[in-house]
Every structure is written in structure tokens, then in C-alpha cells.
């Protein structure tokens, strides 16, 4: 069972720096970082008009389904996915086993360039996620979650119609 996932502001900023650079260096349209369970972590580039919540959930579903296929044929995972469209294409990569990097690109870029740049960005992100996991574990051990303090009234108030 996975532990609870936490994202801190400083780590979020570090991820934004990496994907902001990736947008420029890969000539990408937009980039998303999604958790394996379908939560959107970060986005960069031309992402207006895109339903990001649905994108995150479907990306995770797709990764889960192809991961299941991989196991059936004796592979651990398919870490890289590429979906080619008429205008826009999607390049999807697993990062550090638990995170998904989604790059949307069009004719201004190429699969080769995206693959090359994603490799470097993926390595940078792995480092950030490793640090983040250590920090989250330390916080869980010290019991400093902001939700330790919520009361039953806080919860009830959410449901007052």
C-alpha cells in the first residue's frame, strides 16, 4: 500500500522549473506531471482550454492498463508511450516509478527531440521526487499533518447544504 502523498510548495516550484525548461528545450506545447493514481501535480506551457483533471485521470488509467498488459507478457512496465495524432501528439514517460510526465507537442517539434529532452528532465525530476518522498516520510513519522487538528465540526460544516 502506498503512503500518503504530499506536495510542498518548494518542491512544486522545483518541478515547475524543470518542466518550464522542458517546454522550451523540447519546443513542446504543454507539459503535465501526473501521479500514478490520477492526481495532477504540475503543468506548464499552452494548457489553457485543456480539461486537466480529466487528462490526469485518463493518463493514469492508460498507464495502469498498459502496465497490466506489460505484466501479462512478462514485462514490469512500459515506461514510455507515444500517441501520434494528426496535429498534436502525446509523449508519456514514467518517472521514478510513481510519476507520469506527459508532453504535448506538434509539428514545431519532433519525437526525437522530445525523447532526448525528456530523458534529462526525467532524471532531474527523479531527484526532486526522491527528496520529496524522504521529506514526506519524515513528516509522517513526526505526525505534523495539518489534518491532525481538524474537528468533527469542520467535517460536518462541509456538508451543510
Amino acid at each position: 500500500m502506498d503512503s500518503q502523498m504530499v506536495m510542498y510548495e518548494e518542491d512544486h516550484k522545483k518541478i515547475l522549473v524543470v518542466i518550464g525548461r522542458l517546454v522550451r528545450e523540447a519546443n513542446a506545447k504543454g507539459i503535465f506531471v501526473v501521479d500514478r493514481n490520477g492526481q495532477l501535480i504540475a503543468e506548464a506551457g499552452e494548457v489553457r482550454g485543456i480539461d486537466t483533471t480529466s487528462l490526469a485521470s485518463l493518463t493514469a488509467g492508460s498507464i495502469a492498463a498498459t502496465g497490466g498488459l506489460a505484466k501479462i507478457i512478462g514485462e514490469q512496465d512500459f515506461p514510455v508511450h507515444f500517441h501520434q495524432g494528426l496535429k498534436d501528439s502525446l509523449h508519456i514517460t514514467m518517472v521514478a516509478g510513481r510519476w507520469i510526465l506527459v508532453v504535448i507537442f506538434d509539428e514545431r517539434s519532433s519525437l526525437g527531440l522530445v525523447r532526448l529532452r525528456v530523458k534529462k528532465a526525467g532524471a532531474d525530476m527523479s531527484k526532486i521526487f526522491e527528496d520529496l518522498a524522504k521529506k514526506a516520510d519524515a513528516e509522517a513519522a513526526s505526525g505534523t499533518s495539518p489534518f491532525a487538528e481538524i474537528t468533527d465540526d469542520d467535517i460536518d460544516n462541509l456538508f451543510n447544504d
Partner: protein
Amino acid sequence: MSFINYSSREINCKIVYYGPGLCGKTTNLQWIYAKTNPDLKGKMISLATETERTLFFDFLPLSLGQIRGFKTRFHLYTVPGQVFYDASRKLILKGVDGVIFVADSQIERMEANLESMDNLRINLKDQGYELEKVPFVIQFNKRDLPNAAPLDELRRALNPLGVPDFEASAHNGSGVFETLKHVAKLVLSDLKRLGR
């Protein structure tokens, strides 16, 4: 597995509707989607077959309001109920924070209910969860049908743990929000407990 995002001040939780084929899981989500303020919901996604049977999952993101300055967002998923989609059901249970088991009250669906409940227990175990420890409620759906089994019989068969259960007729919305609210409360209470 809930996700606390300090950067966007959000907490995200995942709730899965489980149950046998045609028990009304998708209907629950459709009712919630239809009756929720547009500002509080995202787009509903249904990955279904041509005959509108769930193929992979339905998905509906829902905002509930703020707790201690954090926006609470719930991601509602249904599983495909048909027996042969078991591999998909396993995948959807990954990272679940709360489960609603939708039982079909019709007498002739009793065996399908029991089979699906066993399947839920097994698939949760595969993911490292125990049904007894996960925020869990049961909804007895289709109470309005003439062939619905008596409530105490359903309880005896499907709710030996005595978890909170609700009567519902999802097609007219009765019991739908009560069930959702209760599991959401259990999930948030669990978060509080884990935070200690």
C-alpha cells in the same frame, strides 16, 4: 491514498463505487453530476461500451469546500461490474481512500452481490488494504423495485461487519447523496486519525 498539495492548498481523495454489473454505480455518478452546482464539479468521463456498459471506469471530480484553508476535492470512480473485467477493477482500486459498495436489492441478484463483495475483499487485499480498515459504506440500491429483497435479509448477507448502510433508488436520486456524504466523512475522519 489521499494527496495533500501544500502548493495549491488542496486535498484530493479517491472514492470508488464497487458492485455487481448493472447495480447502479454509473447511475449514482450520473445523478451526482446532474444535481451538483457546475462550479463544484468537473467533467464526467465514462469509458463505456457501445451498449453503455462500463468498460474501464466512470470518473467525476467533485469539490466539497474548505477545511482549515485546504480545498477538499473528491475523485469519484466506478469500476466495471461485469465479472470478466476483473483486471480493470484491480487497477481502479489503486490508491483508493474510500469504498461504496452498491448492492442490487433484487432477490435474483443476491448471488451476484455476494460474489462482487468477495471480489472486492480479494482485490483490496491485492493492493495491501483490508476491507475492515478502509472507509467503507454499503448502499442497497433499487429499493423501489417490487422484487427487492427485505432489508434485514440483505444486511445479514452483505453487511456482517455492520458498516454504515443506506437504502437508495439511484435512478430517482434517493439515498445517493446520503451515501456519498457518509463515505466522504469517513475518509476525512480517517485522514484526521492518520495525521495524529
